[in-house]
């Protein structure tokens, strides 16, 4: 297609982040004329995965503060290179050997994204890898600045059974808590949950489950992954999250609960989804955004007239995107930034060791996982801990012999590096693994929009993913609603497709 000028479409989707791409996938066999654009020159939007040189470009663009990055979820980006790089002792690989995820996520086995991936027949183009073990790194004790301890989180009955640090009664109490978690949403436990939900997790454990040992609290926090401190983490927050973890264990194989998509995380799913839409006839243009929009000129055909950033004008029956991709003139002003205190500080570090001990097999005869989760306590129980996702080179995100650490925190960004250093220290490897390359940035939370205001007329706004590191279960909710609107009432078969191969075989 030489020029888009004066073309007419059923649906224009702007942005190629995960939600928009999933919508493209859901419409890929609808027969609708679809134009899918992205103002960036790469796929994936907020969930993009970048090679090193791309990351360096990206940091240049996102270096300013939030006001300078009004159309982006990110700001304050910087790169720091470690000394090791200059000495040339441990080498970074070439740029394309990396695929760094801006927003890496844990995808729990029970996530409703996975059945949709299967029923839409895109699973054969994706490779999911296990996220195996959870660890805690406890804060260095006073007077012992370099000492920190790495402990594997017992995340199931057999781990509790084997854990020698727990005495018989603690095993009993911990299991009692885990059993409660497993059935917290059943009728029999409802009353109890109402009573306990406001209590901090650590208090409830002690008072209601008889768990006297404080050492058991950290591991449970690690499974819940709160962005707030221990004392602010309530049962109401923690219990459903721990339950999600426990209920996911064993679904895809023994001993693990979550997966990551190989080659760059959610960006890979977004790409595969876009490819499916392209195969179905969708047109893809990168480096084009929506500059301006005029309401339907002709009320009769109720089409939108839109001006693209390249100057061309196009018309469409439907326009869908996340708020930051849509021009202010069309739907409503860009939603106010949520409280900046909600922003998440993130860093990506490339490390000079495979950190093999973070990736033990998931079970006797099980797989070697490609991901691990580490919960690093940096400043005591009154301050939030740092969450680090560690991806091995098996994830395809870095060359062999290295790994990538994705750290995030709500709070003082200087703690990110402290946490990374504490983790590397706690590994006990000699010499201590080094950070070869590191970038830091700020991820802004999107203000929660009431569902009924997300769409107006023929414009549909998709809620972007949260700043969290767990893919939430409602990722498909907006997408399905948009799909339903576009397809008309009574549409059936959301994300359900026959295999294309099967059709060919029959002919």
């Amino acid at each position, binding site marked *: 297609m030489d020029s888009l000028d004066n073309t007419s479409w059923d649906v224009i989707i702007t942005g190629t982040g995960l939600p928009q791409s999933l919508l493209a996938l859901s419409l890929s066999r609808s027969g609708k004329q679809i134009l899918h654009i992205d103002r960036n020159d790469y796929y994936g939007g907020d969930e993009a995965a970048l090679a090193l040189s791309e990351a360096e470009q990206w940091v240049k663009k996102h270096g300013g503060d939030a006001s300078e990055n009004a159309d982006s979820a990110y700001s304050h980006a910087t790169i720091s290179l470690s000394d090791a790089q200059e000495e040339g002792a441990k080498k970074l690989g070439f740029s394309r050997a990396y695929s760094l995820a801006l927003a890496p996520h844990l995808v729990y086995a029970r996530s409703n994204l996975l059945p949709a991936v299967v029923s839409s027949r895109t699973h054969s183009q994706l490779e999911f890898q296990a996220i195996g073990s959870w660890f805690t790194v406890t804060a260095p004790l006073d007077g012992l600045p370099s000492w920190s301890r790495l402990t594997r989180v017992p995340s199931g009955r057999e781990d509790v059974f084997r854990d020698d640090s727990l005495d018989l009664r603690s095993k009993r109490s911990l299991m009692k808590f885990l*059993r409660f978690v497993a059935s917290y949403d059943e009728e029999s436990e409802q009353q109890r949950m109402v009573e306990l939900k406001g209590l901090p997790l650590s208090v409830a454990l002690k008072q209601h489950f008889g768990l006297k040992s404080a050492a058991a609290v950290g591991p449970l926090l690690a499974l819940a992954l709160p962005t707030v401190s221990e004392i602010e983490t309530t049962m109401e927050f923690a219990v459903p999250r721990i339950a999600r973890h426990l209920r996911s264990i064993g679904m895809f194989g023994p001993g693990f609960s979550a997966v990551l998509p190989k080659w760059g995380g959610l960006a890979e799913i977004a790409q595969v989804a876009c490819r499916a839409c392209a195969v179905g006839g969708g047109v893809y243009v990168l480096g084009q955004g929506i500059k301006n929009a005029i309401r339907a000129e002709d009320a009769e055909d109720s089409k939108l007239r839109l001006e693209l950033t390249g100057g061309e004008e196009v018309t469409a029956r439907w326009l869908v995107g996340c708020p930051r991709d849509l021009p202010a003139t069309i739907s409503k002003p860009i939603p106010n930034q949520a409280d900046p205190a909600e922003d998440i500080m993130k860093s990506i570090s490339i490390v000079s060791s495979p950190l093999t001990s973070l990736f033990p097999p998931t*079970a006797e*005869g099980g797989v070697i996982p490609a991901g691990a989760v580490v919960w690093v306590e940096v400043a005591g129980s009154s301050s939030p801990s740092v969450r680090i996702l560690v991806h091995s080179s098996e994830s395809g995100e870095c060359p062999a012999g290295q790994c990538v650490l994705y750290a995030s925190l709500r709070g003082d960004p200087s703690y990110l590096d402290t946490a990374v250093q504490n983790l590397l220290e706690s590994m006990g490897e000699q010499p201590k693994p080094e950070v070869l390359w590191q970038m830091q940035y700020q991820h802004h939370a999107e203000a929660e929009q009431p569902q009924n205001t997300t769409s107006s007329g023929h414009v549909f706004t998709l809620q972007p993913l949260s700043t969290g590191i767990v893919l939430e279960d409602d990722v498909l909710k907006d997408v399905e609603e948009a799909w339903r609107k576009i397809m008309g009432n009574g549409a059936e078969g959301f994300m359900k497709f026959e295999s294309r191969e099967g059709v060919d075989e029959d002919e």
Partner: protein
Amino acid sequence: MQSHGIPRVAATTLDKSEQARNKERKQIIQYQALERDVVDRVKAKDYSDTTFQLTSQLLTQNPEYYTIWNYRRLILQHVFARELAADEEPSEQDSAAAEKANLPPAQHEVLLLIKEDLQFLIPLLKQYPKCYWIWNHRSWLLGTATKHLPAHSAVTLWQAELGLVSKMLGLDSRNFHGWGYRREVVLAIERLSSNGDGEKGSRTGNMVESEFAYTTKMIQSNLSNFSAWHYRSQLIPLLLSSRNADTEIRREFLDAEFELITRALYTDPYDQSLWFYHQYLMATLNPANVQALPVLEPCGRVQHARYLEREIGSVREMLEGAEDCKYIYQALLEYSGRYLEVEAEGGKVEVGEMRGWLRELRGIDPLREGRWRDLERKMGL
């Protein structure tokens, strides 16, 4: 075979499209033609390689078709007999390979054929881990190898089976075909590596240590694996005798097992498998249970009573925080009943307390009310 656990989503046979129906009709015709071909050839005693390959095709589509497995064995028997009787000179290459394997050329050929067939079965086993006939055929192949080949050669085949069965049990840790086959494999290896000294069916016990360690590993990755607990219970008497354990060692061993199961029971008192193992340990002390395998030899009345006292005490402590766990009351009642039989004075257990346990039990477990009524009568509570 039967539709065990086929969820309802699969039940869409009623609304097949015409296209799907045509496809199925075509498949039926192809399947029947293949079946006819195989049957006709075998009836005509055509034991050629082509017939053999056709049985592979048919069995891959339908491994439950036992008659075809029989045909496959007929063909193999025929080929083995021909190889072993052959007096034609093998090629130089074949003789060199046979020499390397330390086998006469004919036997080497048989070994290669058996290996090839074992290989054929692996994807089938993975796809149909509960199909009796596939396990049978494997077992027949190994048995035939044992019959035709010298021990040093057969034993390497059996040893490879140990790896396979571990992999199968890694995929499904309760597959009872797998556990049964494992017992068969271990017996065969022990027999073959003891130069035939061991009598048929008896255990020389030279793998008992590694097998015991295997059960520990399996239990640690799934406490509910009753198959592993059971196998462990079967190995213990052999283990002790292969260690030439004296009374003291036996006692220490038993205490370590009690400690292990207590740790497991504290972790999860609601798991039946664990209580069956505790019950097994207690049964080894009970001379009245003729099915029980002896661990302490001998275990006198006094010693039996002391163990009962100790374990009743330990189980009683487990009640705290698990007052809703029926197995604890069941164990307390069972062991108390036995204790009162052994120790007439019954110093450590009171009938009143037993009545209380029974009352709790009946409250928690109304499903088995008839059993508790009988128990009440039997124990005179």
